[in-house]
């Protein structure tokens, strides 16, 4: 397996458009010299990879390619864009649009990431040990095509609009989320182990959101269906009990919202509406 180590040579002050950092792109290069000459944009100027990173080849041979970024990558944008295979490991914080439109492979971040993590993602897996910004697995601005496959796991918390326009795949957030998680969602599953700051599932038409923490309240355009003891997510069986809501009826939606019964005592009044 070929492994490439990238170490920033300085503390970046301006954003770096770094979608060239992707295993598929590096694998196309035959020698490490070619990788060093890949062009990234530092602000509005083109720069070679070698001019801003120390590029080191750790291991050689084999097909699968691993890229390791050691150091602060929070100014890097679009790392792993459209990648189909291989691995990217970031030891430190990563910037926005990480794993944008990725089709396969794995991205692991030991740190926090910026917004638009895995937006338009179609396949593969992203794991983040820290927090993520807004728009995890969402569509780009104005579009109605969000994440349509793959898995995103954030161990920490995430910002607003997790899974906006999501079509398929799985997002799991270990901590809390901001507002509008699952907004416009059409399919797939979002699991939130912490709490939501409100308006969860607004305008959702399909798919499922499971919340283990508090939701404050559920939008009035959701109607209660039943109480379930277990939520099945793939192989997992998440113990409940859960209030199960259907919605968003304002959009003629048929999504499902699972909300922990024990953590949301103020939703008890819904029980009288269960037939």
């Amino acid at each position, binding site marked *: 397996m070929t492994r490439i180590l990238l170490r920033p040579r300085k503390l970046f002050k301006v954003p770096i458009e770094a979608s060239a950092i992707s295993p598929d792109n590096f694998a196309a290069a035959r020698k490490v010299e070619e990788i060093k000459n890949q062009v990234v944009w530092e602000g509005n100027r083109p720069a070679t990879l070698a001019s801003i990173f120390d590029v080191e080849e750790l291991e050689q041979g084999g097909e699968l390619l691993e890229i390791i970024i050691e150091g602060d990558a929070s100014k890097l944008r679009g790392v792993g864009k459209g990648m189909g295979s291989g691995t990217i490991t970031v030891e430190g914080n990563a910037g926005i649009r990480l794993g944008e439109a990725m089709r396969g492979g794995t991205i692991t971040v030991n740190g926090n990431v910026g917004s638009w993590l895995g937006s338009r993602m179609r396949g593969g897996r992203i794991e983040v040990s820290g927090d993520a910004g807004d728009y995890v697995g969402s*569509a*780009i*601005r*104005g*579009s109605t095509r969000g994440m349509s496959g793959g898995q995103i796991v954030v161990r920490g918390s995430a910002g607003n609009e997790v899974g906006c326009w999501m079509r398929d795949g799985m997002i799991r957030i270990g901590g809390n989320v901001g507002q509008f998680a699952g907004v416009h969602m059409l399919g797939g599953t979002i699991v939130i182990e912490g709490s939501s700051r409100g308006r969860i599932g607004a305008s959702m038409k399909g798919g499922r959101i499971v919340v283990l923490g508090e939701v404050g309240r559920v939008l009035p355009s959701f109607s209660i269906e039943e109480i379930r003891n277990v939520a099945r997510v793939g192989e997992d069986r998440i113990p409940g009990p859960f209030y199960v809501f259907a919605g968003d009826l304002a959009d003629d939606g048929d999504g499902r919202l699972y909300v922990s019964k024990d953590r949301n005592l103020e939703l008890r009044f819904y029980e009288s509406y269960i037939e």
Partner: protein
Amino acid sequence: MELLIKNGYVVDPANGIDCEKLDIAVRGGKIVEEVSSSAKILDASNMLVMPGGVDIHSHIAGSKTNLARVLRPEDHFRDFERRTALTRSGVGHSVPSTYTTGYRYARMGYTTVIEPATPPLKARHTHDELNDTPIIDKACFPLFGNNWHVMEYLKNGDLELCAAYLSWMLRATKGYAIKIVNPGGVEAWHWGGNVVGLDSEVPHFGITPREIVRGLCKVNKMLKLPHAIHVHPNNLGKPGNYLTTIKTMECVKDLAEGASIHITHCQFTSFKGEDWSTLRSGAQEIARYVNRNDHVTIDMGQIIFTATTTMTGDGPFEYILHQISGRKWVNKDVEAETGAGVVPVVYKRRSFVNATQWAIGLELALLIEDPWKVYLTTDHPNGGPFTAYPRVVSWLMSKRARERTMSRMNQSAARKTILQSLEREYSFEEIAIVTRAGTAKALGLKAKGHLGVGADADISIYRINPKEIDPSRDYRAVRKALRRAAYTVKDGQIVVKDGEIKEVVQGRTFWIDSRVPKDLEEKIHRELSKSFREYYTVGMENYFIGEGELARSSPIYVGEAKV
């Protein structure tokens, strides 16, 4: 600067030249008889030479175009152009930014483009954007079909005052022609409604769309405007609307001296059938009317199978489209003298309705025998972006190209269209008419659309040999050549070479300088001052756009009105 374009195959239908090997001499931005021996020589051997393209209907600037840009970041996402030493950066697939619009038209060999729907109150915005649209010459059509003053004057039978008003308005907005969108219907939309046909009453005004269209057609003649009234009829986008379209054409038949009405993006108003599931083409009926009558011209409004943005001054139609498609929608300008809406749309091959629409546009162009009466448009961006014109040309020139698209589209629609039975294939001469000569003639732009002595030296040269190529078979080669002009010459300057911008010039903005007799002028001034004080949030003086606000003003003086 002098320029001599040598040895090209010239297609210039307005002067009866069809694929002749001719030299074209250019001096001072005009086409001349001959030039001195020191002229720059441009070798056009084995190339097709035509007048620069003239687009009669393309939404390229103004309030709703800009709103569409704001509404559609995803439209710009994949389609952007980097800055070069000469050109600015820009974005946009269906709603390109101003500079990109100018560059892209010039690359295709187009040199004159009309923005066809300007809310008068927002005309300043339109002109600011047109000023920033480089290379091409431009003009805009202000909207008058739902204007309170117009409706008041017409209701009272004050044609003279109506003419005086429009004369002032054309100067105030620096407009070029009278545009009518869903006459009366948009006024009804201000109250949440619409009109159902040519004879339904407009709420609060006691006037019918028929009276508005006829009245404005008469005023158009009184003012001696170079272009006929430019009409987007009632009921656009509704099955069965072909009858309304024919009635609209018929209602001004007796007012004809030459063309009295231009029906725009006719595809959208040639639907037959009761509802969407029984939708059929009304192109045969429309074409029959156009073939038998000489007072009508139309443009196609061809749709392209792509993602695009619809935008029109027809507010109620966009609301219906939003309800059908569930896509995002903006309602606009209802507080102004007009209305408008924007909804993104994806035309799909597999959709019965879309495939039928595709066929209707082409049927119109192929069934109307005289190419001087039908012009090529996609109603950019409503039917598709203008960058798809070469594709439309290939469908017109090649039955094979049409069959190929038909084989990949909704088969139920393919079986119902008569397109299969239409053998007609446009020649290069006919293409030059529907994209240049005909549109320039309809617009009354005497220096455009031809290559005779005295014409503006707007010339497009394509890397294709019209004598050798068989467009019916090699339609792909035609399409490719038309996408990137070998050369585009604008006012005698080579602005494009091999599809790349070589020179950026400022295009003209045409507007109509119309006058009415002095007493009438004073009367309308008095009335308007009062109306501005009572109804407008803008002062009458600030409403008026000064000539200095146009980057390159080109007034067309039409003389005093016959009142």
